[in-house]
């Protein structure tokens, strides 16, 4: 697995500066424009905290989720399709499982770096009470990204036409991005929609990040969120082992 991760790190060497700049600029703009700017129009508190405090961990989770989809979805489909990275790798002693594992580790690394940059920006806004809290939020956001990444990778390796990825991005990822308690509380949704959002992964990620950031986390809910996201990540790996093998050894 480290052998195929090494390949992605070689590529990352070329691009990491650029991606780190984007990873910092993005949350900076978001927190300034929406958190501080738009947030100043929000009268009173949201669930007892300022809008910026409420919104920042939510959008952190949403960004981790979205970036993971892009990296795992488009990244995997390109590596299998146009660039034939995987086909090259499986002609060597590497197995399809190792090829998948290396790429997933790389996606996880990218999600982690993105979450870390975001949390650093949040810290600059004075949103954390302690270093430990900030660290816990970084890990929570990383898990929020890894969970969908493995599932999306398992599917994306079978996708040969790119527009399908766009369709899923638009009609699955974007609604989740907006309505999973990221920008506003899920409790403001109609009851039926609330139930749906509670069943979807990003609500768990957003609630995990927010409750840790605000210090309102309870052991029970934290365990539930982590178990949900962890199970999703494991399921994606198990499905991916099958789909990668099927696609790469035809």
């Amino acid at each position, binding site marked *: 697995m480290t052998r195929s991760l090494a390949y992605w790190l070689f590529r990352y060497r070329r691009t990491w500066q650029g991606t780190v700049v984007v990873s910092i600029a993005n949350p900076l703009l978001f927190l300034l424009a929406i958190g501080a700017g738009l947030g100043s129009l929000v009268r009173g508190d949201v669930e007892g905290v300022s809008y910026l405090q409420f919104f920042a961990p939510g959008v952190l989770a949403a960004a981790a989720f979205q970036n993971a989809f892009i990296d795992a979805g488009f990244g995997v489909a390109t590596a299998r399709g146009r*660039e034939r*990275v995987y086909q*090259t790798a499986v*002609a*060597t*002693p590497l197995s399809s499982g190792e090829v998948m594992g290396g790429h997933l580790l790389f996606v996880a690394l990218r999600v982690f770096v993105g979450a870390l940059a975001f949390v650093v920006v949040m810290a600059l806004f004075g949103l954390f009470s302690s270093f430990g809290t900030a660290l816990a939020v970084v890990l929570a956001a990383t898990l929020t990204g890894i969970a969908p990444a493995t599932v999306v990778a398992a599917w994306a390796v079978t996708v040969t036409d790119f527009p399908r990825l766009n369709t899923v991005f638009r009609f699955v990822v974007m609604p989740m991005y907006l309505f999973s308690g990221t920008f506003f509380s899920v409790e403001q949704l109609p009851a039926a929609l609330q139930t749906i959002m509670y069943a979807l992964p990003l609500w768990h990620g957003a609630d995990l990040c927010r409750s840790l950031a605000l210090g309102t986390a309870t052991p029970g809910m934290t365990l539930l969120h982590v178990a949900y996201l962890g199970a999703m990540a494991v399921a994606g790996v198990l499905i991916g082992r099958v789909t990668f093998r099927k696609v*790469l*050894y035809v």
Partner: protein
Amino acid sequence: MALIEAERLEKSYPGTDFTAVAGIGFRVERGEAFGFLGPNGAGKSSTMRMLACVSQPSGGSLRILGDDPVVHGRALRARLGVVPQDDALDLQLTVRENLIVYGLYFGLSLKHMRAKSAELLEFAQLADKAGERVEHLSGGMRRRLTIARSLVNDPEILLLDEPTTGLDPQARHILWDRLFRLKSAGVTLILTTHYMDEAEQLCDRLVIMDKGRIADEGTPRDLIDRHVTREVVELRFPPGEQEQAAEKLGGDVEVLPDRLLCYADDGDAALARVTEVGLRPLTALVRRATLEDVFLRLTGRSLTD
């Protein structure tokens, strides 16, 4: 022991009726250059994928270096070199980095690969391009880099799928020269091609494939002796007059869409006869018979259809 033994080897793809390889048998001995000659869709690439241990046979038996590729695929791939048809190099990485990451796939160390890549780039005549990104390389250079990459593990068998397709004549000759050197160094070469000149240049022995089957097998010389005459006269006539001319000429004549092929052991004598019977072809050419003629004889079609 043969390096590769295939018996009644088959490949079909689930969910389709298509049988890419329909029961072929062949043996490849150590140090040979062995070729699969055939048109597109003949089953060459499917065969190569099975030999590369990345595609499971649907039937028959296949042994590579004495082992079953389905059971020992991983260990076998460590001893093979693969040059895919489409290069599949990483365009964003440099020439050297492409070799290094590929070496890491084989579990070779970074230190080893730094030295090895220099040696391989020398062999591929790309030493001065080591630091350049692959996207700036010409097609011929990319193919040489792909061959260099396939040699990182000092393979016992090198599999080349259409090694010179799409290259200009000069690039092809450079490539052939490199392959000759590998062969002299004892590497067993297995290649597919639809160029008969390539097959004649490179292959000690070859099989002619068509529609998933092997039509015949032998050295290029054997195949030509067995199926065609020593020489061929190519005649072109105005459109519509070919059939008549063929009838008038009689003997061993093949009618193609754009020309007649007249098989003869003495081409010049055959050409003289064309004039004797009163035919006035637009152009006439006497040449030696090639594998292209063999293929035409065996399948009734030309290689590049």
